[in-house]
């Protein structure tokens, strides 16, 4: 029986640079896992490989027993994996609620002809799409800003909007790429609570990328640590904290006499 989500021997080269080197780890259904490592360790590249933005050079990524290499980017989404972006990719000019509706519309379909004529199920389904989107905005605390253009939101709120938009795709596995980047300490605390709540309430499996050790240590019982594209440690926060390789990656090596 293979794991819910598994990378085995995944390697990716960009020219002469090995961005991801023989990466292997597995996540079980319902886990809240963390992927950490210093800047440039290849964390985001792993997300890009999983979601099909790049193709893998070697190795396989499987999700619910299926090899993801067979699917295009949009197909992987419909398999149940959605993600947020480290450098936000919102539809800036569209309103906050429209951003979420763009994702939510997949689960609530109506035909092209119904959209063109606004007859049939159009009104009912559009209402459902909007209601679902508002509900998600409520969850992340942005309901009062629904009609504002997404680009005018403060940075921390844009991050929350990205999470709402990713959730609107009804994922089973949610990939969060540095959700706390650019947030102040207070915002990070409420974000931590949000991620925990979402994990529990939506019965999600979540993989979080972070380079801040404290955030990831606090919320993730299962942590994979990488540096220079390769895995250097895996385990619980306590195991990671004391791991010599991790300390070396974060604090540098002690100079020998």
């Amino acid at each position: 029986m293979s794991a819910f989500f598994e990378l085995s021997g995944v390697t990716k080269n960009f020219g002469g640079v090995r961005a991801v080197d023989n990466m292997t780890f597995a996540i079980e259904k319902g886990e809240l896992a963390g992927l950490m490592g210093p800047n440039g360790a290849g964390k985001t590249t792993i997300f890009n490989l999983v979601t099909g933005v790049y193709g893998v050079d070697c190795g396989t990524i499987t999700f619910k027993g299926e090899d993801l290499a067979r699917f295009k980017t949009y197909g992987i989404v419909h398999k149940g994996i959605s993600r947020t972006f480290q450098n936000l990719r919102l539809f800036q000019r569209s309103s906050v609620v429209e951003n979420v509706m763009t994702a939510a519309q997949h689960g609530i379909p109506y035909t092209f002809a119904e959209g063109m004529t606004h007859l049939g199920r159009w009104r009912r389904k559009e209402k459902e799409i909007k209601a679902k989107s508002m509900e998600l905005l409520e969850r992340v605390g942005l309901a009062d800003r629904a009609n504002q253009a997404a680009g005018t939101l403060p940075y921390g709120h844009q991050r929350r909007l990205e999470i709402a938009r990713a959730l609107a795709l009804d994922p089973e596995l949610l990939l969060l790429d540095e959700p706390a980047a650019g947030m102040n300490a207070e915002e990070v605390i409420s974000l931590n609570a949000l991620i925990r709540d979402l994990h529990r309430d939506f019965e999600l499996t979540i993989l979080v990328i972070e380079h801040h050790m404290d955030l990831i240590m606090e919320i993730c019982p299962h942590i994979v640590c990488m540096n220079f594209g390769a895995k250097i440690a895996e385990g619980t926060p306590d195991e990671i904290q004391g791991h010599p390789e991790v300390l070396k990656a974060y604090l540098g090596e002690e100079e020998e006499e």
Partner: protein
Amino acid sequence: MSGYAEGIVVLLCINAIAAMGVSLLTGFTGIFSLGHAAYMALGAYTTAILTVQHGVHFLPAIMLGACVAVAVAFFIGIPTLKLMGDYYAIASIGLGEAIRLILENWQSVTRGARGYPGIDNYTTLPVALAFVVIMGIFMFNLINSRFGRACKACRDDHVAASLLGFNTARIRVASLMISAFYCGVAGALLGGFLSFIQPVMFDMMKSTELTAVVVFGGLGSMSGCLLGTAVITLVTELFRPISQFRMLIYGAVLVIIMVLRPEGIMGNRELLSWIKDPFGRRSK
């Protein structure tokens, strides 16, 4: 209404239909085209040949003409729209010129550069109005549906769009095909209005005019492109008496608008939301 005024209204309707098509593609899906006159030409010639030589009623003929434009759009769209960037814009220049040259040189079918005369005057005012109203309603509905949101997602960020589960290539091709349908109908109506068509009417200039009108009205605003069409059509008509300066004034109007409102007349907002909230306070 005098015959002249009626003519201007019909022309306005025809231009509005074509502009809506280009607006969907350029304003809402973010794909620039410099050859949309080709789809108008395909619609116009197909309809002309069907009505004149085969005695087909003009309504099915217009639909068939538009379908020919859609088919060509499909075949040109598949290879070029899978790629991101401006590949389609380049290909569309080639398409526009190729179609025009084929029409000029395929004497036995199109009667060549001298043009195709004797088309029935089927584009009367009621016909033109009916077409623009029905197609307008469909277009406004479409952009306010899931398809419209998908187009805008592809326009604003195609990587995010595909990671939100949209097959961006398919949406771009679909948008081009709908846009070609609108331009095909507009071309067919133009033939029925002038009762004479000529390849030179569908040259590069016509194509750039179509795109200019949409940019002028505001990318991402369907009512803006209608407003742009009205302004450009009326400006070119009003100054017909001093016809040698007509293009000069047309150019000046474009420059003035682009200097004063670089985002186009309407920006990306619709007329209705602008009337309710003229300074955009609510969206700030």
